[in-house]
C-alpha cells in the first residue's frame, strides 16, 4: 500500500439486502465518489465483524473499513500498489 493510514472518515453508504456498500467518503475535507467496489472482505475484532472494502475513486484505490458495532468507518490505505 503506497500510503497506509488509519483515519476516521465519514462515509455515505447504501444498506440493502443485508449488505452494505460505500457510495462516497469524506477525507481531508474532500468528497470522493466511489466508482467501483472491487473487493470486500471481513475480519474479526472481538465481537465486531469488520467489513473491508477496496474501492476505486478517481483512478486511485482506497481501502475502507466499517465497524458495525461502533458504526464507524476508517480509511486504512490509499493506492494499494508499489514497486519493490
Amino acid at each position, binding site marked *: 500500500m503506497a500510503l497506509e493510514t488509519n483515519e476516521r472518515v465519514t462515509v455515505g453508504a447504501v444498506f440493502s439486502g443485508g449488505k452494505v456498500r460505500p457510495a462516497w467518503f469524506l477525507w481531508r475535507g474532500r468528497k470522493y465518489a466511489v466508482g467501483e467496489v*472491487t473487493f470486500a*472482505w471481513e475480519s*474479526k475484532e*472481538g*465481537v465486531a465483524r469488520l467489513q*473491508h472494502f477496496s474501492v*476505486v475513486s478517481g483512478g486511485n484505490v482506497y481501502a475502507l473499513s466499517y465497524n458495525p458495532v461502533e458504526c464507524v468507518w476508517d480509511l486504512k490505505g490509499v493506492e494499494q500498489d508499489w514497486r*519493490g
Partner: protein
Amino acid sequence: MSRVILHIDMNAFFASVEQVANPKLRGKPIVVVGASHRTVITTASYEARAFGVKTGMTVPEAKKACPHVILVIGDNRKYTTASTRIMGIFGRYTPLVEVFSIDEAFLDVTHSCLLFGTGEEIARRIKADIKREVGLTCSVGVAPNKLLAKLASDMQKPDGLTVIPPERVSEVMETLPASELCGIGPGLTASLAALGIKTCGQLGRFSASALRTRFGIIGERLRLMGMGVDDSLVSPSDEEDEAKSVGHSMTLTRDTGDKDELSAHLLHLSEKVGRRMRRNNYLGDTVTLTIRYADFRTFSQSMRFKKPINDGMAIFLSAMKLFTPLRLAMKVRLVGVSVSGLVCDPMQVSLFAEDRKRAAVTEAMDMVNDRYGEFTVTWGTLLSRYNHKDVIAPAWRPTGVKRVEY
C-alpha cells in the same frame, strides 16, 4: 454407476485476489509476499510466472527473474474471506465438498447431475458463479475419481475445464508420465524409472508382486494409480476425523539465539494455542515444541502430562520444560508449539481452589478478548508482539477447529 468428481483449483489464488482488489495490479507481474523482510514468494501472478518467478523463491531471486515485479504484502483476511465464499458456492451444488486446501476442493456431484446437468455443466456453472461473485478464475477437472479429477484440473491453466470421461481413462493414462500423478514425487519417479516405468500405462501393466516387493504396501496402490483407479471418497470437512492436535508456529523476523526473546515467542504461541483449544472445547495432555535452526534443520520434542490442559500459561510452562534444558546449536529461525492427545473438555469444576482461581482468570480474559479482540488482555511481555503477521497454515479450513481468524 460411475462417479462424477470435480477438482477445483483456484488460479494463482492470493495474487489473483490482490489483482481483483486493486485494478492497478491487473495484467502486471506481481508476487504476494509475507510482511517479514526475509520472506519468500507465496504466490506469483501468471504475468510474473511468464518471467520464471515461482512460489518459494526469495525476493532477490524473483527480482532477478523479473526486475519490474511488483511486491504485494499478503492480507490473509482477504484470502480466507474469498475461500469461504467460494466454498459456499460449491455447497449450492453438492453437500459432498472436501476442502483440500484454502484454494482447492474436491466435489462429488454424482447425485447432483439430476438437478444441475452433467459434470461438465456443473463445472461451467461453478466457474461462472465464482467469476461473477468473487471475480476469480479457476481450473476444473471432471473425472470418475479424485486422482483423475486432480490430474484433469492441472491440464489446463489458467481458467481451464478438462473432462476425462470413464471411457477415455485408459487412453489418457497410456502415455501420461507417471510423475504427473498426485502423490508421485521426484524420488518415487526415479525409483519407478529404475524399474523401466515412465508412463502410467507401463505402471498399470507392471507386475503387482514386483511393485509390492520394491515399494511394500503402496506397491499395489501405485499399480492402481497407473490404471487410473482411485476408490477414495470425497470426505466433507464436517466428516473429517477429529482434530489430532492444535498448534501454531512462527518464522521469526530475524534469527536469534536469545532465549528470553524465544521464550516470549513461545508464550505468544501458547496463548494462541490455548485460545483456539478453549474456543473449540478441547483439552490436551501432550505438548510439543518445534525448533527450526537458521540452516533449516528442524526438530521437535514432546512431553506428556498426567492432567490435560488448555490454558495458555500451562501450555507455556510445559513448553518451557522442554525449552529450558535445550542447548541451542545455532540461531533459531522458527518456533512452534502444539498440543495433542486431545479430548473434549468435560467442563469439570476442579476440587482445588488454586485451579478454580486460574480457570476463573482465564475465563475472564477470554470474555474480554472475545469482546474486544485477541490479546486485548494479555501478559505484559506480549504487548509488543500483538502486530505479528501470521502465515496461513496449509491446514486452514473455513469451519471448525482448523479455522483461524487473521
